[in-house]
């Protein structure tokens, strides 16, 4: 099947905005992603190091029934929805996203490195692009807006140094 084009950004933005609005109306809270990852992690750590989790003041906040949480169900839904959309558009295939000037190995090392930086930062800021910038942006939370501009600033400041990865 031939890959279909992405939908226009403004249409996707409206779809995403209505989803976010429905989350507020139905549940009284916005969307998120990194919080769910944190909960999977604490659950996983708890399987073989439960005393370590209990002794750590940060992990312990998530230790009680880590998977019995709204965000965990939401992120499982994200997997389903992303897969469905990709399947309907013929976009399911194993690839590595990168520019022409970097090796596959180089890209995968940077993907892991960037992920590590982001995982740390998302915990420090109490959220990521969806849970803090998008959700906080829509509710006009001061921290959400400050965070969003900081994310763009950090990304643009770093872009030149990793340009060979993308362009």
């Amino acid at each position: 099947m031939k890959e279909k084009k992405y939908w226009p950004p403004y249409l996707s933005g409206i779809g995403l905005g209505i989803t976010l609005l429905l989350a507020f109306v139905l549940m009284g809270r916005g969307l998120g992603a990194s919080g769910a990852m944190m909960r999977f992690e604490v659950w996983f750590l708890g399987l073989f190091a439960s005393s370590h989790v209990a002794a750590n003041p940060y992990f312990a906040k998530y230790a009680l029934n880590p998977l019995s949480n709204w965000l965990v169900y939401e992120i499982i839904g994200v997997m389903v929805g992303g897969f469905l959309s990709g399947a309907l558009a013929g976009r399911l295939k194993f690839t590595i996203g990168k520019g022409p000037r970097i090796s596959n190995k180089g890209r995968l090392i940077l993907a892991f490195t960037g992920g590590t930086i982001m995982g740390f930062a998302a915990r420090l800021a109490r959220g990521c692009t969806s849970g803090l910038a998008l959700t906080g942006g829509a509710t006009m939370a001061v921290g959400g807006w400050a965070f969003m501009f900081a994310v763009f600033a950090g990304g643009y400041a770093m872009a030149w140094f990793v340009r060979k990865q993308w362009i």
Partner: protein
Amino acid sequence: MAPFYKFDYFSEGTGFIIALLLGVSFGFWLERAGFGSSKKLALQFYFRDMTVLKVMFTSIVVAMVGLAFFTLFGWIDMTAVYINPTYIWAQVIGGLILGVGFVVGGYCPGTSVVGAVTGRIDAYFFLGGALFGMFIFGEMFPWVEDLFLSGNMGAIRLPELFNLSTGVVVFLVILLAIGMFYGGEWLENKFREEEA
């Protein structure tokens, strides 16, 4: 009266099912926009593809205007809606670091999940890194706790910060979004020409 869950219209279990369905919609739209692709996301930082900016501001405006009208009609009680607490220094510094991680890694947490389920191998490496980074944060927590708690301003919102009415802030955000859309289109055209 919304938010329905907060006013006990349904149980926590039903809430989980709703969460799942909202997640399906969230993932669907992220993939539709092209956010399963790290390259498309990263090109934002080289002005060649401003989809991230356009999608983010469109969805913020849609949800924000919706909430403002529902409040006006008396359909939703905003005091029962979760407002992200502001810890300004933790969030500004966290945001700067997260932006670096975005352009290095090519994803953010939500989009990496969409990338992973559509077969992007780099998304799996990113996800592994993100879990590792969260683990490091937890292990380092005693050393970063002061920063994590710095600049606590509570659940403060822009109208209170600037002492403006909600309607005025909504209007200003819409103006800002329109400016971003024009700027984004202009930048894309400019950098596309240079490339050609």
